[in-house]
């Protein structure tokens, strides 16, 4: 049974991750809206990092008392899964709007991420 100090540190770390992902998502959307820094590695890293981890953390943040490994594994798994399915839906429905889909994913993830930042567990 981890100590109270360890649990508090873990919760603080999780809050931090949620906040960083919110910031990454918002910045990625803004960079997309204003079409800034198109070819740079930073924008690619921010966008890909948020899309792969954001939806995942939005789901994994609901896990209580889960070890960090399970949380990160679920984060990556759900993040990869949601983006794969979103991309497949765009292809199957022949509705190819990458920018809009980025905004939709951000809009759906950020409320949950904010909730996790406030109520970390």
């Amino acid at each position, binding site marked *: 049974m981890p100590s109270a100090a360890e649990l508090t540190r873990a919760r603080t770390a999780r809050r931090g991750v949620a906040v960083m992902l919110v910031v990454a998502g918002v910045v*990625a959307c803004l*960079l*997309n809206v204003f*079409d800034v*820094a*198109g*070819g740079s*590695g930073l*924008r*690619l890293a*921010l*966008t*890909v990092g948020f*899309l792969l981890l954001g939806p995942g953390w939005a*789901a994994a943040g*609901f*896990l*209580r008392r*889960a*070890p*960090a*490994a*399970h949380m*990160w*594994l*679920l984060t*990556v*798994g*759900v993040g*990869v*899964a*949601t*983006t*794969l*399915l*979103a*991309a*497949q839906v*765009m*292809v*199957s429905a*022949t*509705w*190819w709007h*990458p*920018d809009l*889909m*980025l905004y939709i994913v951000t809009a759906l993830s950020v409320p949950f991420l904010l909730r996790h930042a406030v109520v970390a567990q």
Partner: protein
Amino acid sequence: MTTQDTRRDADSSRDSPRAAVPDSEATQVMAVGAQDLADPPTTALPIIPPPPVEDPAPPTWVERNRPTIDRWLSPALAVLALAMLPLAVATTDLAALDGWGLAKVLGAPAWLALLFAIGACLSELYAKRPRIPMLGAATAVLILCSTGLPSVIQPAARFGTAWTITGFVDAVAVANGVPPQGLDARFSWPAFFAQWAWFREAAGADQLDVVLRWFPAAVVAVWAIGIYALARSMLGGSRAPWAAAWLFVGLNWIEQDYFSPQATGICLLLTVLTFALGPLATRRTDASGVPGWPAPHVGAKRLPLWHRWVVSAMTPPNRPTLPPRQLLLVYFCAALCILAVIPAHQLTPFAILGQLALLALVGRYRGRGLVLIGILGVLVFILIAARPIWTTQIGLFIGDGNTGAALEAGVADRLTGDFGQQIVKYGRFLVAALSYGLGFLGAIIYWRRRRDLVPIGLAVVPMGFAAQGYGGEGFLRILLFGLPILTILGTDLLRFLVRWRGWMKPVLAVGMVALFAMLIFLRGGNDSYQVVYPRDAEMYRQVVATTPPGQNVMPLSDPGPFAIEGLTMYGRGGGIEGCGRIAPATDKIGCIAQINPDVIVNFGSIEAQGVYLYLNKPGWSLDLANTLIAQGTYYMWFQDPTDPYDFVLRKTGAPVIDSATQGRPG
């Protein structure tokens, strides 16, 4: 004593000592003397005086400084390992790559980096109180210095297939999300290509070279997290799961972690498997707990086996200890992961579903509906979304069952090449055999500990792929799908060995160094022709920018960044018997004459493949080019100044776009 004391009612001969105590509430104490007649003689051992206390041995330097060592040694070694990496880049001569691959040309700093990384891992593991964040950091450094070493040292992603896939991503992005039809069967499973095309468009980038370069290290890191989480559930303990993760990284020579759908498929497989064997794991109770079924009478005859199986099947597994809503969260996420794999990759869904079906059969996890969802999802997807596959290539599903041909293709064809190449290939067999050996021996230890054969069953299930006759890569997939469980069972064996004899610890440490050195040797073994330079990619992009659509562009062989753009714009020629690749063909000039491409592309890696794998004469590609130029059919359109084997030939008279005036087409 209170009135609960009933000793007063005992035998009267015992009463005499107590009669002296008038107060019936006083504590009764049994006097020894008067009861010798009634009690047997004592069997207490005589007191042996302890040996004289010697002065304890003075603490060694290590014991005195143990806290400091435990605290600082591992981070120091990790930092040293990272510091060695730039030196490794500077001291490695990639131009000297030959059949022995990367291991031969690595400078000493690269091996030191690996050694320090292993030292960081082991010193934290054997510390008195291993710190999880430090172990995680050490694992990350280890992955960077072993699996990620080519990503650090080589300036661009290696492995031509990764570049082919980036070409697929480009094709989907350029066509606005419409996968091209009729080009390659893999486009019927477009989710991965569409995903990265989406990422690329959303980020406003036009190429993914950086992603390609670091993808293997990132993917193996995710897999290591999965193995660690799975090992925590299956093995328990605080040190063994880390050893499992390191063992997995060390045994993973298979190299299916390049930028590809199967790499993400394995991430999803590990997620589902970890949660099925972890939070969702449970057992079935015995049949008498099923509501509605009566308990068996005493002395009743045992039900026949089929009856017991039916009862078992109708008994849902117990609820795991998770709260219901947490359970549902994990269940729905697992369902999401399974559904996501289906449009991404052809084989991975079957691997997941096979393992889940085995677990469902024995009732080992809660949520057997996942198997139903998976099977129906696969059927619906293949029937509806992948319709072009079964309307044009029904032979896949009838399956020629050519296990013999697959065996030959998988084993024999891969044993070609010069001496260094052959050693690499035999080395791969050796490590694969080691993986299975450790796994099966570990299964015996696991059985002794937990009376459980299900894990080894999970490792055996992927072998069913052999019946599908998928070709040479199938054997790699069989090993890869089974490797997580084999690794965890192997770690159980290693833990048993370490507990059995203390001297196994340094033996295993040396073994770890040897395994990782072998890993670098095996993974880098084909690097003579797998290495890709940015100039190769740049050259091909120039070709795309200057070739009008509709022409035939052909490489002399597979390696190298071919078709990374403009996949749908050009044909490739081909279809001539015996001329599938020019490099191993016996009559190269004749093949080219028959295929008659408009543009011929060659990379330095194609030249190297011809020399080290197909045993051509060194310089064969330039000789071929000069012959074609001398014939007058082709002219040298471009030759890289730093690497004479990077060249492009164009057919005399074929139109060329002026790249100065036109932008990138498509």
